């Protein structure tokens, strides 16, 4: 997924802490952005063409593309929360997947306990995850103890181990299912699409749009972007930075909560399922540019495609292998992500 136009020189300084305001929106010059989007689109087209030649069946490839894009929407939503947390707080949140698993178990528990429609558990899971996120940030990550990058990484790593094994202790390892009542399937130009998948995709896009609107069009979103760009500066003009940090972290985990509910009917729910989503979300975040919310959505769609095409390219290999290969190429050649700005 590298960009052929930029291969000539190694990327400059690593993109770890650089003008994060730009990272919240695709802030490049429009021309460069278009060029990169075109290059990415070209690569995707080539990849699909190769898949066509390899499999020899248009239907197989079309089914993969549809499934990949639909799943990619969900990856995008999960990654949006992760990338928001990184862009504003500079925290690499390893507990994101475990929090997602918690939300799935909340959805499972509510559906089991009350017989509510699975999607209505959004009303429980999202506020719950928002609250958990706020508590985690206040209790574990803010203040001096969580200062350095490694420490935050270790704390979130410990938290993810704790949550995962807590779920394992209380619910056991048996996989569970959240059935969607009245699920149906339909054919989209030959590709089979289940209603649950389509709803998940549309829900992810809608929540992504909501998040984007929050960031771009509200006072609070402006405060978030101000803190991301320059914390001390924002503090000087009267923004309560600590509160913005906590709320941003909570919004990020709430995204994971929403994604979990939408994804619950599509997967078997196990305590360790967050791990794989977490890995994929990291890849998406790096691909879209750390801190770039719109990039995360596009990156999610791309990774959804990569996963599906990998299974066509390499028979019998795990779809994650292709995801990691793309990940390393992006890390090496464009650590600022496909849509990040070069400094």
């Amino acid at each position, binding site marked *: 997924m590298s960009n052929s136009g930029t291969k000539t020189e*190694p*990327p400059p*300084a*690593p*993109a*770890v802490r650089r003008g994060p305001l730009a990272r919240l929106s695709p802030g490049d010059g429009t021309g460069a952005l278009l060029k990169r989007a075109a290059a990415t689109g070209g690569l995707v087209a080539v990849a699909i063409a190769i898949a066509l030649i390899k499999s020899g069946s248009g239907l197989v490839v079309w089914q993969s593309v549809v499934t990949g894009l639909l799943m990619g929407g969900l990856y995008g939503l999960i990654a949006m929360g992760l990338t928001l947390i990184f862009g504003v707080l500079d925290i*690499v949140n390893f507990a994101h997947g475990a929090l997602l698993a918690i939300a799935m178990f909340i959805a499972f528990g509510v559906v089991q306990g009350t017989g509510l429609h699975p999607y209505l558990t959004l009303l429980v899971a999202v506020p719950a995850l928002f609250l958990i996120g706020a508590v985690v940030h206040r209790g*574990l990550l803010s203040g001096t*103890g*969580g200062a*350095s*990058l*490694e*420490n935050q*990484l*270790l*704390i979130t*790593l*410990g*938290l993810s*181990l*704790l949550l*995962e*094994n*807590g779920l*394992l*202790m209380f619910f*056991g*390892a048996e996989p569970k299912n959240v059935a969607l009542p009245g699920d149906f399937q339909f054919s989209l130009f030959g590709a089979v699409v289940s209603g649950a998948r389509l709803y998940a995709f549309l829900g992810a896009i809608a929540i992504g749009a909501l998040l984007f609107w929050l960031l771009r069009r509200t006072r609070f979103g402006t405060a978030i972007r101000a803190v991301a760009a320059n914390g001390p500066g924002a503090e000087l003009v009267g923004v309560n930075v600590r509160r913005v940090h906590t709320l941003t972290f909570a919004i990020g985990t709430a995204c994971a909560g929403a994604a979990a509910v939408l994804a619950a009917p599509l997967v078997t729910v196990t*305590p360790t399922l967050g*791990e794989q989503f977490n*890995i994929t979300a*990291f890849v998406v975040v*790096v691909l879209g540019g750390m801190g770039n919310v719109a990039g995360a959505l596009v990156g999610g769609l791309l990774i959804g495609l990569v996963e599906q095409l990998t299974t066509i390219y390499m028979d*019998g*290999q*795990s779809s*994650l*292998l292709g995801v*990691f*290969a793309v*990940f*390393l190429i992006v*890390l*090496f*050649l464009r*650590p600022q992500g496909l849509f990040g700005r070069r400094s």
Partner: protein
Amino acid sequence: MTGTTGITLTGRPGAGAARPVKAPPLRPQNRQLAVLAVLLLVAVPLPLVLPPAQGAVAVRILIFALMAVGWNVMSGFGGMFSFGHAAFFGLGAYTSAYLLVEHNVSPWIGMLAGMAVAAAVAVVIGYFAFRYRLQGAYFALATFAFAEMLRLIVTTTEFTNKAVGFTVPLIRGSSLWKIQFAADSPAYFWIALGLAGLAALVSILFLHSRTGRYVTAIRDDEPAAASLGTPVMRYKLMTVALSAAITAVAGAFYTQYYLFVNPDLAFGSSVSIQAIATVVIGGIGTIWGPIVGAIILGSLSDVTATLLRTPPGFLDFLQGRSGLDVAVYAVLLILIVRLLPKGIVGTIAARWRR
């Protein structure tokens, strides 16, 4: 990862037995070597004293210590935060298991081969990571991705028996050459002790060698070190290779002791996390931190297992459930990072110096 060095610029000479201070260059090294010798002497008769069940715990502690010493060389002394040491552990385990099972090669030679393979792979990974200047979270994620890719490849390759892995063929009687003894034989402990002692010795010598000083200088201020003419890339790669080789020994011995290895046991992310947690709890960048962390974490899973076998009343619902040991060490990890960011050894050493 700065601030918790083995080499420090402050402090009075003669303060703290386990803590190097700036002084005539050889002294802290000699003191650490003396402590190591005493520790080894004390540990040698342990398997004759301990009940057999505790003997297995002791061997596990030594395997943890090997991994932790290896991780500490790269991430503690070198400041390159690796999230993928499972790659090197797994390469050590698989190389020696493959050579033994398919070609009947002694695990000792397999261990050396595993060290070489792991070091070579580490140099390749390191070269790309440094060449493209990955730092912080990006470096950690890249090493993680490499380890996971190896796990996926090993899981789906015929050559490595796919998801099944390797089972060490049993021999009749015991043999030092094949590293195989009766299950409760103290020989396993002594071999592990020898390997862990050797690893600790190497890490002490490395820290005080010219290379080690360059490496800590690069960790503390890379541009400054580079501007003084230190060949940064070469020393970083040497550190990474040494770290990988030590970790590979842990993998090879693990296979011999448990007689079995599969992709998840060898390359799973829990292996990397184990190495990290051990050192962080003990104290990053200290000589004795990995050992202290290994003793704590190694005995922890035994304590929780005992607890679950005969749970007290309020824990009754946990009987037969798994996960408690990891949950406890996760809590420990969070508490240590929040309250003692230098780890146990680092904090004690800092107190002592004051």
